[in-house]
């Protein structure tokens, strides 16, 4: 490409090229740095915005999950956007097609007419000199352009390439202003060049003024003076495009307005439908919380009103049932109270009379003396049975109230031990109290706790066969536990699971000699339940039994873990446990607790937990 003459200038070009390369490199570097900075800015912004975005996203998700209204409105909007997009695309496509087809038909028929005119003009021309040929061609073509008329045409006139060039061919190509043959798509040109007399068309773009307009190019062949020319007529579609744009704008605006309106309508309708539902939800929540007089507002006769009416009906029957139950419970309490009074007054008289007779028995003959003794003892037994029965029925009627006050559990235990001491002496048992603590304040109904512990201690003494009874106390941060351990005849795990059942006796033959109502442990279990505590039993034939009472330190608290083990530790040690203290288990040291799985008396699980207890006892037996 370089001619030898320009050698001298080659050097400067080289330096120019080098400088250009250098500049290019510098600019590349700069662009790179700028890009990095922009990237970093974007990353930082995202990082800063992320919590906010995440919060926004989460709150939207939450609304989506929780609000039927929000969900419905969002769904409606999304679906209408999609359907509008489909319909809008179809409409605008149809309109555009129609517009185009119309213009195309017009363009094709016009082209045919004008091409024919041009061909006729060329055919009939009698010109031989160059200037008149050029003038003829130009004039003809200018006439085609139709300046000033409504429909503007442009043309491109080009001699067909690769043909013999006759001498008298003075016109090679000609086109309207700004146009060249390049605006004609090559496919169209090829089709025109290769065809016979057919007319072809193609869409194209060509410059008008300083912008490109869409248009249609219609191509034909014309012959002049033995030269074949391609004649393309170009029709401007700018107007059609503008019309289409306007229509599309209208579609966009209308769609947006409609979607907003549909969103609003959806919101309004959903609100109308959902608000009774959410009202029903609020009302049923209140009902569930115990406000039985709550009702829904019923308006009209539609489905929502029917829902409200049936809801109210349900609430009313619920209220009726509950009130009825409450009344029944009250009646039961009243009955218990009345029976209590009605039975107790004559019983008091009988008891006093029996005691007077009993005190005077020394003066009676043997038959009357024995009768007086029997009367006295059985009246005593009758009395304890009656009071236990009344106590149990009070629990059943839900009339038992917990009167919890903070009190030192050792004070109660002290009283129990003091009270049980004479009985223990009678049986030859020793009562031993073991604890690391000096004082544990528990929120409890001391009257009930006293009753529970008295029952446990007296039971232990009765079944302890004269061996020592160990009472252990320990606390952790949430609960206090008292275990009462005897080393007497013991009981099987199956029996241990049933000791809290009413009137249940391990050995029916023993019942008559030991006495008691058979309700003591059931009452203890109910008392424990009232405290939200655990009362559990462990036993093994021949190894004695262990009862554990666990109470939450605070009223209404829950127990996760009892501070003491239910299965006594002394069992694992060899030798008899007769005179060994019960080992205290520190809650921090205990490897595993059996609390949750054992017989929680008075609670529904008590039967289900027979398994673990039995297994425990079995393992202990092997050890």
């Amino acid at each position, binding site marked *: 490409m370089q001619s030898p003459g320009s050698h001298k200038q080659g050097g400067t070009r080289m330096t120019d090229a080098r400088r250009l390369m250098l500049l290019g490199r510098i600019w590349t570097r700069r662009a790179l740095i700028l890009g990095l900075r922009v990237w970093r800015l974007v990353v930082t912004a995202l990082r800063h915005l992320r919590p906010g975005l995440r919060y926004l996203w989460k709150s939207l998700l939450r609304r989506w999950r929780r609000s039927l209204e929000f969900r419905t409105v969002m769904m409606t909007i999304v679906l209408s956007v999609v359907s509008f997009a489909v319909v809008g695309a179809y409409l605008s496509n149809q309109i555009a097609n129609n517009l185009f087809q119309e213009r195309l038909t017009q363009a094709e028929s016009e082209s045919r007419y004008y091409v024919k005119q041009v061909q006729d003009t060329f055919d009939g021309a009698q010109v031989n000199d160059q200037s008149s040929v050029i003038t003829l061609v130009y004039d003809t073509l200018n006439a085609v352009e139709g300046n000033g008329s409504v429909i503007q045409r442009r043309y491109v006139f080009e001699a067909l390439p690769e043909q013999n060039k006759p001498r008298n061919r003075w016109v090679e190509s000609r086109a309207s202003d700004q146009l060249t043959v390049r605006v004609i798509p090559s496919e169209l040109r090829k089709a025109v060049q290769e065809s016979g007399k057919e007319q072809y068309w193609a869409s194209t773009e060509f410059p008008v003024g300083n912008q490109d307009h869409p248009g249609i190019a219609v191509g034909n062949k014309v012959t002049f003076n033995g030269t074949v020319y391609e004649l393309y007529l170009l029709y401007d579609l700018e107007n059609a495009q503008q019309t289409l744009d306007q229509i599309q704008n209208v579609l966009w605006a209308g769609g947006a307005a409609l979607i907003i309106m549909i969103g609003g309508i959806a919101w309004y309708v959903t609100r109308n439908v959902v608000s009774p539902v959410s009202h029903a939800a609020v009302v049923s929540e209140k009902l569930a919380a115990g406000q039985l007089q709550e009702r829904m507002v019923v308006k009209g006769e539609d489905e929502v009103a029917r829902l409200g009416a049936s809801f109210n009906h349900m609430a009313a029957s619920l209220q009726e049932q509950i009130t009825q139950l409450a009344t029944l419970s009250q009646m039961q309490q009243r009955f218990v*109270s009345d029976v*209590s*009074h009605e039975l*107790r*007054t*004559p*019983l*008091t*008289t*009988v*008891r*006093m*009379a029996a*005691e*007077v007779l009993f005190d005077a028995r020394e003066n009676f003959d043997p038959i009357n003396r024995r009768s007086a003794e029997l009367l006295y003892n059985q009246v005593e037994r009758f*009395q304890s049975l009656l009071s236990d029965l009344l106590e149990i029925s*009070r629990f059943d009627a839900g*009339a038992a*109230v917990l*009167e919890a006050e*903070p*009190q*030192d559990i050792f*004070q109660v235990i002290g*009283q129990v031990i*003091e*009270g049980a001491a004479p009985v223990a002496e009678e049986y030859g048992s020793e009562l031993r109290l073991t604890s690391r603590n000096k*004082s544990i*304040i528990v929120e409890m109904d*001391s*009257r009930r706790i*006293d009753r529970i512990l008295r029952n446990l201690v007296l039971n232990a003494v009765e079944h302890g066969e004269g061996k020592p009874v160990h009472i252990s106390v320990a606390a952790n941060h949430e609960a206090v536990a008292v275990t009462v351990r005897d080393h007497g005849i013991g009981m099987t795990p199956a029996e241990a699971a049933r000791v809290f059942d009413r009137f249940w006796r391990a050995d029916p033959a023993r019942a008559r000699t030991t006495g008691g109502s058979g309700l003591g442990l059931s009452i203890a279990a109910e008392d424990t339940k009232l405290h939200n505590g655990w009362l559990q039993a462990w036993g093994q034939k021949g190894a004695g039994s262990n009862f554990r009472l666990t109470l939450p330190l605070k009223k209404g608290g829950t127990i996760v873990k009892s501070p003491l083990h239910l299965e006594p530790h002394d069992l694992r040690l060899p030798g008899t446990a007769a005179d060994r203290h019960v080992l205290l288990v520190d809650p921090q040291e205990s490897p595993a607790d059996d609390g949750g799985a054992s017989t929680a008396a008075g609670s529904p699980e008590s039967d289900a937990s027979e398994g673990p207890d039995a297994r425990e006892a079995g393992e202990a037996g092997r050890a």
Partner: protein
Amino acid sequence: MKARILVVDDDEALAEMIGIVLRNDGFDPVFCADGGQALDVFRSSRPDLVLLDLMLPGSDGIEVCRQIRGESDVPIVMLTAKSDTSDVVRGLESGADDYVPKPFKPAELVARVRARLRPGEQKAPETLRIADVTIDVAGHMVTRGGERISLTPLEFDLLVALARKPWQVFTRELLLEQVWGYRHAADTRLVNVHVQRLRSKIERDPEAPEVVLTVRGVGYKAGS
């Protein structure tokens, strides 16, 4: 002299039996079977102690208790078949000093009666103070700021027991033993109710007591 005891009970058999027991123990029982007439009988017989059944025809035992307490400080012991807390507390709040739950033993009843009739052992002239309350033990008089406060004998005994040992915290059981004369553990609700009643009389603000203080988890003590 025999102590006269008014037995207010609608159950004739029980009243008669109580009479037998009381007479046997050297008391002089007077009977009334109707709550409506209890006050009249009380006025005419001037008893040293009233045994009162809580459930009476005519007028409620609690109402009778209130009427008698309205005009006299005589000790009242309730006989109650209901050991439900609310009934016991209601009885105690209406002015009864003690109660015996049915069915009771004769010895129990007599012990309760004797404890309430304890002859006021000759008290040495002694003046005690708790906070701004002055107690004249011999004169059986309590004043605050020169103003006399009327207390029942039981409330007085309770206050004196606390005031004599202001350094000591009294458990409810100890108070039951010292003031009520129970030798074995009994119902500590007696103490609670009477402390409330005492406070309502001697404290400026029973909600924020200054004279009889509660020691959480233990019991009560005198204020300083």
